[in-house]
């Protein structure tokens, strides 16, 4: 009996080893990361990088060759890079995307990261990390029509905005919503101009930077982009801000407020006048009826 039990145990052990061996043989090289980083890998498999045969090591570096057991501590010594800090992130992306990284490194976002404001937006804040999609993909946060939502994620957030930069306004999406550019989209048309169309996507710069796309000197060129407003080159795109909802001053008079007050009064007057006269007219009809009955 004892000897029999021992044989069975040895047999089970051998079968177990065999099964692990089969499982290991079925694993592709790329899937080896999956054993521990299952979440990241399954996100990555939906991404545009995966579809273009980019592998984990293209960003994270290291050596994927497996020696010995699948679950090997050996990977720790193979020189993989974990998640990079914000300051180092661009070195990841610039391996392939040299031009856009160079553009990004001119932006106010990058400038602030360099100053130590790590809340500022970096590549992954807009594009996502492992699940990066093409900007042509409707599910991508960088898809043209999703861009306002993506930007407002930070730019509408008061704590985020005020934490590191005084004077940055959080009503940019709200004021944008009132413009034809966005209303056309809400009404079922195309997005005519999204945030990045005017502010640039990678090379975002503040208004007072002479190289900024929204610097008053550059606005005619920005508005006059192909497919937008071809006649803009000779126009005066100043004397009012695109996002400024409330006031437009001429000779230190706030004309917008003045016009609004005027029309609020006009419409209230119109409503009272119209319905008042309808009511008075109706009641005078009763008066005529009553008089007729008297006669």
């Amino acid at each position, binding site marked *: 009996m004892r000897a029999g039990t021992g044989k069975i145990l040895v047999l089970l052990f051998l079968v177990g080893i065999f099964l692990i061996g089969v499982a290991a043989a079925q694993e592709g090289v790329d899937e080896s990361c999956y054993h521990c980083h299952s979440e990241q890998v399954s996100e990555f498999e939906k991404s545009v990088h995966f579809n273009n045969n980019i592998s984990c090591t293209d960003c994270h570096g290291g050596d994927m060759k497996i020696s010995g057991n699948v679950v090997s501590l050996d990977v720790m010594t193979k020189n993989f890079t974990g998640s990079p800090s914000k300051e180092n992130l661009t070195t990841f992306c610039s391996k392939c995307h040299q031009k856009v990284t160079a553009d990004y490194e001119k932006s106010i976002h990058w400038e602030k990261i360099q100053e130590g404001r790590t809340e500022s937006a970096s590549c992954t804040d807009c594009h996502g990390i492992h699940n990066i999609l093409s900007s042509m993909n409707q599910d991508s946060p960088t898809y043209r029509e999703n861009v306002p939502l993506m930007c407002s994620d930070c730019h509408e957030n008061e704590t985020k905005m005020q934490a590191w930069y005084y004077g940055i306004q959080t009503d940019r999406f709200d004021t944008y919503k009132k413009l*034809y550019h966005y209303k056309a989209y809400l009404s079922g*048309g195309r997005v005519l101009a999204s945030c990045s169309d005017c502010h640039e996507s990678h090379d975002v710069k503040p208004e007072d930077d002479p190289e900024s796309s929204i610097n008053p000197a550059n606005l005619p060129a920005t508005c006059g982009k192909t497919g937008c407003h071809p006649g803009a080159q000779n126009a005066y795109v100043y004397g009012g801000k695109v996002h400024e909802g409330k006031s437009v001053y001429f000779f230190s008079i706030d004309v917008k407020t003045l016009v*609004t*007050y005027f029309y609020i009064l*006009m419409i209230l007057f119109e409503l009272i006048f119209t319905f008042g006269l309808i009511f008075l*007219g109706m009641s005078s009809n009763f008066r005529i009826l009553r008089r007729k009955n008297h006669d």
Partner: protein
Amino acid sequence: MIELKFKRFTLNQRIQHIIFFTTFILLAYTGFPLKFPDEWWAKWMIASVGGFDNRTLIHHYSGLLMIGVSVYHVIFHLLLEKPRIDVLFNLQDLKDFIQQMRYYLWLSDEHPKFGRYTWKQKFEYFGGGFGAAVMGTTGLIMWFPFDAMKLFPLGVVQIAILFHTWEAVLASLAIFIGHFYDEHFGKFPNFSWITGNISEEEMRHEHPLEYEEAMKDQEIKEEVTETGHRKETGLITVFAKLVFTVIFLAIIVWMLWISYLVLVEAINTYIL
């Protein structure tokens, strides 16, 4: 007794009116949904004209046609025809207005006697003229903003946008509630905008001074007697009035909704 008819609108004026109100309705129908894209009716209305690009096309070319008919109106009635003096406001209108208010408030038993144009009709006429001028000018600025910006700064375009919305609401309130009630609901069925004629009874009721003026030269054989009987109303007329009333009420609700939205937005932004 011969049934007299009085000419109120010439064929020229009737065609102008038809073009003006058709474009007006199209402009309101394709304009307000863009202003309030979040409302359910906005999506429905834009879908009903076949999408956003059609909406824009209809709005632009209706606007152009309305500008055309407005310019034609001014040129025709000022230059090609002898201009009418009696459409202008005068002191009598103020007196009529005060007298009518006194009558409405039971302070007097005397209803004012109106001539060819009542004070309210003059208000509507010049209000319409002012509205067409404002909407036409600001509309063209909005259609060609960068051409406008060769002449004016961006602020002017933004003020034009502001005017366009407000004036649209004001004009639509005046037309869809005031004008519809006075001229079409109150006088239902009023076909004078097609035939150009109004009945003797209406003439005597609404424009007694003009009636007296017109009848002075006429040799009237029969004494005009006050006819007690009401206009015969057939079943079709009753049904038509019912349909008109339902549409009219729906438009009133819609207009009040829009007024509420613009007023709340303005008060939230500018006053609170």
